[in-house]
């Protein structure tokens, strides 16, 4: 079970467009909502209304700032969830066989009926994609909404992951990376889709599109204000001189 398939028929995954993401966290919330009422144990919150709340999320949105020497900084919103790696390090370490990667579509899942909550898979994942639910005691992770994408009871437009369906900016795309003609493959080819931490050798399926290069990063910077040089008169002038004396 925990042996990774040598290859998968499809490579389903996400493209996340860092140029378009506005950092609204809607994907995070819709993910939490869907996965709390659907697949497996709900995503619990601990001390939700108290002074020290925490909870299980399968998707979290960080915000980074990148700044080159002598240039203005750029803000990049950065949603992060399971990358459904081809060489997923979380799967072979699992002692119970609860973690597995599906041969048919490459989705990495946890069978909660076998998970003993040892947490080793979360340690093995470099990306922090797995969180041990503190109430259920089992490992939770992105399922790529496996209960939506094949669900004939849903209208066709809803048969995509909840985060993709929700994203108001159109920054998230779902598709099959094994098909070079798919929407996601084309996006990756056009925009230079990249892997996160490629040096970890995980071969992530999900790709991130880097922010498009700005024509002039410094173009929008205002010139610095000149220092106030003229003599101040009136009340403010008196205040200035008095404060100076104290």
């Amino acid at each position, binding site marked *: 079970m*925990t042996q990774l398939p040598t290859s998968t028929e499809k490579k389903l995954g996400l493209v996340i467009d*860092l140029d378009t993401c506005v950092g609204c966290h809607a994907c995070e919330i819709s993910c939490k909502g869907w996965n709390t009422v659907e697949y497996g144990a709900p995503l619990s919150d601990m001390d939700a209304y108290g002074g*020290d*709340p*925490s*909870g299980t*999320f399968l998707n979290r*949105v*960080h*915000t*980074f*700032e*990148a*700044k*080159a020497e002598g240039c203005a*900084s750029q*803000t*990049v919103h950065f949603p992060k969830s399971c990358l459904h790696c081809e060489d997923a*390090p979380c*799967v*072979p*370490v*699992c*002692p*119970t*066989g*609860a973690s597995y990667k599906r041969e048919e579509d490459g989705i990495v899942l946890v069978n909660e*009926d*076998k*998970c*003993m*909550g*040892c*947490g*080793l898979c*979360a*340690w*093995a*994942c*470099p*990306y*922090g994609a797995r*969180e041990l*639910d*503190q109430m*259920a*005691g*089992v*490992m939770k992770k992105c399922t790529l909404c496996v209960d939506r994408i094949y669900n004939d009871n849903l209208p066709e437009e809803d048969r995509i992951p909840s985060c993709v369906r929700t994203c108001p900016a159109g920054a998230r795309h779902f598709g099959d990376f094994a098909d070079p003609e798919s929407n996601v493959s084309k996006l990756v080819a056009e925009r230079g889709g*990249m*892997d*996160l*931490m*490629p*040096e*970890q*050798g995980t071969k992530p399926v999900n790709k*991130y599109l*880097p*922010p498009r290069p700005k024509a002039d990063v410094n173009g929008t910077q205002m010139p610095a204000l000149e220092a106030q040089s003229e003599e101040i008169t009136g009340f403010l002038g008196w205040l200035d001189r008095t404060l100076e004396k104290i």
Partner: protein
Amino acid sequence: MHPAPSVIIFSTISGLGFGLMLFLGLGLPDVNGWVAAVFATVALGLAVIGLLASTFHLGNPKNAIYAFSQWKTSWLSREGIVSILTLGTFFIYATLWAFMDMRIPALGYLASALAMTTVFTTSMIYAQLKSVPRWNTAVTPLLFLLYAAAGGALLSNQMTVALILLGLVFAFQSLAWMQGDTALTRSGSSIETATGLGGLGKVRLLEKPHSGKNYLLQEMVYVVGRKHAAKLRVLSLLLVALLPALLILLTEVNHVIVAVIMLSHIIGLFAQRWLFFAQAEHVVGLYYDAR
């Protein structure tokens, strides 16, 4: 990484137990009857207490039975299987030895080999993780084996062997700390590779995804008490190796001295194992601008 007391107790105490089994399996010390029974009980007791402690950090222990199933890929599963085999083999060997005065050397060697294999599988649970560069080195299994063997030598009163092993512990532990301190940098992972934004310049975290704590931070970005690390390292080496070595060399070793040696060694071992976890930086910390 979070230094969970259950995991620290497990790896130290069971390590001592399996270390003692190594020597008892080799027929050292050369005792029999009730003395052998006491030695064997200590070895089994330490190993079993340690293994039981390791189950306390499970979120869902009712599924622990499945942990024996994935030996093809999982070091944790292998550890479970080998530890049970070791306990069984050693129990039969020790029972025949202590109660029937029938020490079977071949069975003893098998128990010794299995005991060291168990310690090796434990160490590989950590050493296999590329995500924790400090652990991802051959020195990790070497050190686990050395610590277990040194503790076993002390417990089985093999003081000459113990001196050599404590010397090796001292040397390789120092090496592990020196290498470990640069391991994350040398791994090539940085906030730039983690975000893929290195092309835009120097990257920093502008805003965390949430204001509170979360499982990832508690489990893998544990930084509490790291400021005492330098002091603890010195203290650990002093107690785990130097003081026991000095006592062996300079005193007439009797039961009281052995008790002092063991107490010192075990406290030093706890400090070492605490540092092993608390100082291990997981690369997920890069997403939180923390190490």
